[in-house]
Every structure is written in C-alpha cells, then in structure tokens.
C-alpha cells in the first residue's frame, strides 16, 4: 500500500474489492461529490462465454504507474482524494477487477479525473488478463503503452 499527502489509497489486492468502502473512504467534509468507476468481469468476450479471468501484474512497476496517474490527476483537476485499487489472480464473472473513487468539492473535476484515471490505467499500467473459456484460454488483446522512440532523444 502507498499513502501520500492526500491519503490516497493505491493498491493491488488479491481479495474482493470493497467498492462501497472505497467510495466512503475518499469523502470528507469539504467535498460535494464522489465519482466512482467499477470495472467488473463480463460474461462474454467476442461472443464466447467467459468462464473466469486471471490477472497478473508487474507489481512494482504497476504500483509506480498507478501512483503517477494519481499524482497527475491531482495536478490536472481540482479533486480531493483518490482510491485506485486493482485486483489480481482469479476473478469470477461479475467480480470487480478495478475500482476508482475520486472525491472533489464539485462534480466536474471528479468526473473528469475518474475518466482520465481509468483510461490512463488501461493504457499504461503493466497488468495483463487471461480469459478462460469452456474450451481454452487466450490473453486479452491489449494496448501498447507509449514509449520513448529513442534513448538519444529521451530525457
């Protein structure tokens, strides 16, 4: 677990995610809104019935990247506190794989920050999902994170 000055909660877990608890956690007296994103396991993929999913992560780097996203939304948006939790291991249909909660004095910033956070997580955090079906398993199509084109020009 990593905690920063706003007492954000940024975690990778292997147990059930308590979304209601996280939504309560980010609220404080000066806030007027909380926006949450609950990502959970769909029962099908490209028309095939999914049995269950397995998630794995490059854990140290994933936590670093999640911290960066949270730092970035604090810079970009007038928000208060963030919870960002991703689950790893085997997940059944309907179980939450990722939960993000953002509190803010006003709703606009909370909506924008939550959307930015999940979109960026899906593109840049090293986590992988394998989809299991009745007759086999496949690694889910993913997104290639942006990388520096050359070490000579990168800072």
């Amino acid at each position, binding site marked *: 677990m990593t905690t920063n000055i706003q007492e954000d909660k940024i975690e990778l877990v292997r147990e059930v995610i308590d979304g209601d608890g996280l939504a309560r956690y980010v609220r404080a007296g000066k806030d007027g809104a909380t926006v949450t994103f609950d990502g959970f396991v769909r029962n099908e993929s490209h028309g095939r019935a999914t049995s269950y999913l397995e998630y*794995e992560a*490059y854990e*140290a780097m*994933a936590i*670093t990247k999640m911290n960066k996203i949270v730092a970035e939304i604090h810079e970009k948006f007038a928000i208060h506190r963030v919870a960002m939790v991703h689950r790893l291991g085997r997940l059944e249909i309907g179980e939450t794989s990722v939960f993000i909660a953002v509190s803010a004095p006003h709703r606009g910033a909370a909506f924008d920050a939550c959307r930015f956070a999940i979109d960026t997580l899906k593109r840049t955090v090293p*986590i*992988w999902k394998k989809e299991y079906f009745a007759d086999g398993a496949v*690694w889910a*199509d993913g997104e290639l994170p942006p990388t520096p084109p*050359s070490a000579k020009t990168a800072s």
Partner: protein
Amino acid sequence: MVQVSTTVQVRVLFFGRLRELIGVAEEGVDLPVGTTLAQVFEKYAERFPKLAGFRSSMVVSRNQEFAAWDTRVVAGDEIAFLPPVSGG
C-alpha cells in the same frame, strides 16, 4: 591496476504471453558493456525462436520505466519485456 569489468549483470523479466511462451519469468544474465535493450531481446529470440515474431507487439522497460529499444543497459538494471497491457 584497476580491473575493468567487460560485462554487466542485469535481471530480465517476462510477463503475460511472453512468459508463458518461453517458460522464463525472471533470470539474471551477464551482458557485454554497451548492450542495447534491442540486443538483449535478440539474444532471447535466438534462444527462443518463438519470441521473434512478438518484437513489434511488445514494449520494454528499464528499471520500471518504459524505455527506448536503443537504451544501453547498466549494471544492476531490471529489464522487462511487456506484452500489450490489458488491465482494468
């Protein structure tokens, strides 16, 4: 006389379908000084020919930051080969 080392030791990690394909999750390797990340990959592609076709659909990280393929390794680096990410 100061002994100048001509190799560097690094850790190399594979994840997701790449790990599954070659059956290696993590190992330590000695590499010549000046080796680039692209050359590290080529060494593994020689050892595991099935890996070669994945070069254009993966990224590489050095010390937990996405890195350019022409980055040169330094002793103690943690190098990871990463398939397209699919969290969330």
